[in-house]
């Protein structure tokens, strides 16, 4: 039994940011928004560069994974859960907003349903695996 540190290459997050930027740019370009596409690629490239060259910061190393140990993993799980709660709260508020204005609540109803089902499935899978 050993205390382990999770190592992920420092290149993962910068390259992921770049790939995401290219995907966003491609989608916007395909939709006829070429200028917005270039802006998306530029923004995500800058974000990727910040992750790549910001290795002196423990925060950056923790975010990108090459400095992530069990404490950072716990922070990551809690931060993910908090972000999920914020998104679900926003979805619920938007559902009520849409209903209150006489609309059917799309797409927030569907997003809320996906969130609820995903949570139950994830809980079941984790319970089954543990």
């Amino acid at each position, binding site marked *: 039994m*050993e*205390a*382990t540190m999770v190592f992920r290459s420092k290149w993962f997050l910068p390259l992921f940011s770049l790939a995401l930027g290219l995907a966003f740019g491609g989608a916007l370009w395909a939709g006829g928004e070429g200028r917005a596409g270039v802006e998306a690629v530029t923004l995500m490239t800058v974000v990727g560069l910040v992750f790549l060259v910001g290795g002196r910061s*423990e925060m950056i*190393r923790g975010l990108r994974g090459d400095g992530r*140990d*069990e404490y*950072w993993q716990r922070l990551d799980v809690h931060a993910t859960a908090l972000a999920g709660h914020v998104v679900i709260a926003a979805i619920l508020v938007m559902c009520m907003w849409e209903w209150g204005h006489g609309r059917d609540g799309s797409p927030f109803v569907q997003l809320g349903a996906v969130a609820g089902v995903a949570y139950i499935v994830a809980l079941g899978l984790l319970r089954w695996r543990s």
Partner: protein
Amino acid sequence: MEVSRQTINAIETERYTPSLPLALALARYFDSTVEEVFDGGNDGVQK
């Protein structure tokens, strides 16, 4: 022992309870027991 400076700081300031493997590794590092490192030799008994 591959943990960050922030993790050690969080343990020292009691903001983070380490996993059992890390607690054992820390105790081994200090040539001590888990009880002595984390409970001041109190044996975990609250009176």
